[in-house]
């Protein structure tokens, strides 16, 4: 029998620097209205969590990378980054 563990992937998807982010701009404007004038720039992205049941951390990372590049992010306009951690029992 193969031993598997639960891994938690935490993924961040952000618009590429070269892509205009109108939502980030609108949020920035609202923050300025709040009086938080020191906020220089705002970029809005997505945060995604996945639970992966598999045999190794390397395999969990491979699955996460494939999920990101094939579905979770559109690499024409977005970048992604992630961390993978084994669930502590």
């Amino acid at each position: 029998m193969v031993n598997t563990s639960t891994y938690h992937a935490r993924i961040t998807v952000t618009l590429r620097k070269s892509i205009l982010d109108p939502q980030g701009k609108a949020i920035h404007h609202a923050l300025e209205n709040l009086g938080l004038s020191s906020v220089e720039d705002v970029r809005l992205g997505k945060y995604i969590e996945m639970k992966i049941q598999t045999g190794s951390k390397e395999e969990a990372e491979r699955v996460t990378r494939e999920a990101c590049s094939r579905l979770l992010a559109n690499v024409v306009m977005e970048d992604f980054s992630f961390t993978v951690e084994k669930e502590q029992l």
Partner: protein
Amino acid sequence: MTAVKFGVVVFPGSNCDHDAYHILKHVMHQDARYLWHKDSSLEHVDVVILPGGFSYGDYLRCGAIARFSPIMKEVISFANSGGTVIGICNGFQVLCEAGLLPGVLLKNDNMNFVCEFVNLRVENPSTRFTAMCRQGEVLRIPIAHGDGNYYADAETLKQLETGGRVLFRYCEKDGSVTTAANPNGSINNIAGIMNEQGNVMGLMPHPERAADPEIGPTDGQKIFQSLMHCIVTDTHIHEFAAIERS
């Protein structure tokens, strides 16, 4: 004239499928049928239409989930073997996500959902989608979208522009392409493009919403008429190229 077989794909959340079906079936008198997203047959249609709407609630990104519907496997292989595919609005987004068209549709730069008639300049009448239009002709067709800001990297854009693959541009009434006439921030005012092989087109405006004389302007009919003409007479893209050169 022989009827052309149109298949209108229905995703959960499509909402312009009935409009497209109505125009093709009852106004243009063609053979139109719905293709359910879970089906795996295109039923030998001549043209596949991916309609407007909010497939899968636009979850994750517009068109990102629809792209994995069972029917899309068939649509992709149909397109890759030269079949004619049109993506309207959300359908355009699905085609970009599926990799059948380059680039992506970003959120409108003004953050508004824009629903209005726009003027579109025909940039290339030598395609199966525009054969019944004149070069530079201005069509009046409505848009209705929040994510129609077309973007592609510089290299892709160059290929689109030099290859005659930009089919429609947002313009003024007189055909001049201005920033003021751009409703969403699209790069180079692009409203519609086709693939390199000339058999797949995506456009943000809704030709099916400007095609029934009972309710308004009918400029949108020209796109469907172009397809009907080219399919019935079996005119292919290389023949258009030959016509242009001679």
